[in-house]
């Protein structure tokens, strides 16, 4: 998937750029602008017009510059990002060692039974799910993934049909991918790298939007789980047979 997108962006970029440049060379964009441009480009040597006004030569130059600027921008960012990421992850490590993740997990535990009615109380899946969600909330991506995989493994032990996802798994994935975030450290870090006046400014918006999208995820997952199209083929059989799922 990514391979195709990457290839597509580059191919379209170069081919379209060639076509656009050729078109602009044969039929120059609005003459009035071109005269000014001529003067401009001679005066401020090397300044290119916006991409859609470039002629073939300028287009080639522009594409060259674009390729190189990708490398340049990355290095500028990463140099300052090293310091900022070290700072944040350092602080987060202190928070983690102080047991902040466990504290959050305890806060969230009353919701578990409502969200995952199929997971029995005290089952190890509960703990793993709670820890994963808490780690996600604190933006601890590296810690969240192993906890999430552990949660999936535990949920699989409750799954009668090992190749089909259960309702609990779908709910866990929906909550996980709707990204409940309390403190978006990485984004604050990137904003600081670009010398933002207030790197933490979008925090309020993020909490608002992420709460909304998580609610949507929960509701939609619940509704879809009940729709006949996605219903578990063997769920009714199983409840009839053993009655331990109801």
């Amino acid at each position: 998937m990514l391979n195709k997108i990457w290839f597509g962006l580059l191919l379209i970029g170069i081919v379209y750029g060639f076509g656009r440049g050729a078109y602009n060379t044969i039929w120059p964009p609005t003459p009035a602008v071109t005269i000014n441009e001529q003067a401009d480009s001679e005066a401020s040597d090397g300044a290119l017009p916006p991409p859609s006004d470039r002629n073939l030569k300028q287009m080639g130059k522009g594409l060259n510059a674009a390729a190189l600027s990708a490398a340049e921008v990355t290095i500028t960012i990463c140099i300052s990002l090293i310091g900022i990421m070290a700072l944040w992850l350092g602080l987060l490590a202190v928070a983690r060692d102080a047991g902040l993740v466990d504290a959050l997990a305890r806060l969230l535990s009353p919701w578990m039974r409502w969200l995952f009615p199929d997971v029995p109380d005290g089952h190890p899946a509960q703990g793993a799910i709670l820890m994963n969600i808490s780690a996600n909330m604190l933006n601890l991506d590296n810690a969240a993934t192993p906890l999430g995989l552990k949660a999936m493994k535990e949920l699989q032990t409750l799954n009668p049909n090992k190749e089909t996802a259960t309702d609990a798994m779908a709910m866990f994935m929906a909550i996980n991918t709707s990204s409940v975030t309390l403190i978006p450290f990485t984004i604050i870090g990137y904003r600081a790298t670009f010398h933002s006046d207030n790197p933490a400014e979008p925090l309020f918006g993020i909490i608002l939007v992420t709460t909304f999208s998580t609610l949507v995820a929960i509701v939609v997952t619940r509704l879809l789980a009940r729709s006949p199209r996605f219903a578990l083929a063997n769920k009714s059989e199983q409840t009839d047979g053993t009655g331990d799922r109801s």
Partner: protein
Amino acid sequence: MTILEYIDLFSQWSVPLMILTIILWAAYKRVPMYESFVTGAKEGFDVAVMIIPYLVAILFAIKIFEASGAFEDIKLMAGWAMERVGLGDYRESLDLIPLALTKPLTGGGARGVMVEIFDTHGPDSFLGKTASIMMGSTETTFYILSVYYGSIQIKKIRHTLHACLVADAAGIAAAVVVGYLLYG
């Protein structure tokens, strides 16, 4: 003070307050703070260095695509269509489409797109702030689903993808709306 000013004040103070909470908590729990910090900071160094190849790859493709004029032409047409249906005032949000499209696919790619937006428009512009909200409130859905389900060999994922994509779309739309409400 208006509500927006309170929010601004709160966000300015959010980081110092959080640091205070963490260190007080850690002191209470008698965590060797300095050592913990250094261990974590090393991890941060690795993260920042590890993303370089991904960032170069995605920025390279995006910059080439943009420099060809293709993106500008698409925006021109989409902007024209938006004006036709009376949404001309909101055409600026078209610059967020690349972010909305890449985020569910790849975290590294979306980071590249966000960096591109910061680089072109600045982190404190309407676009910069709205991109931050979008970035913070969506996840790399396809990646997570394939890794998590792949790890336990689930083949039929039933309604998972549908539900996640609906939630993503809701998050993206909400990010734009909130962006306009708070910073538009």
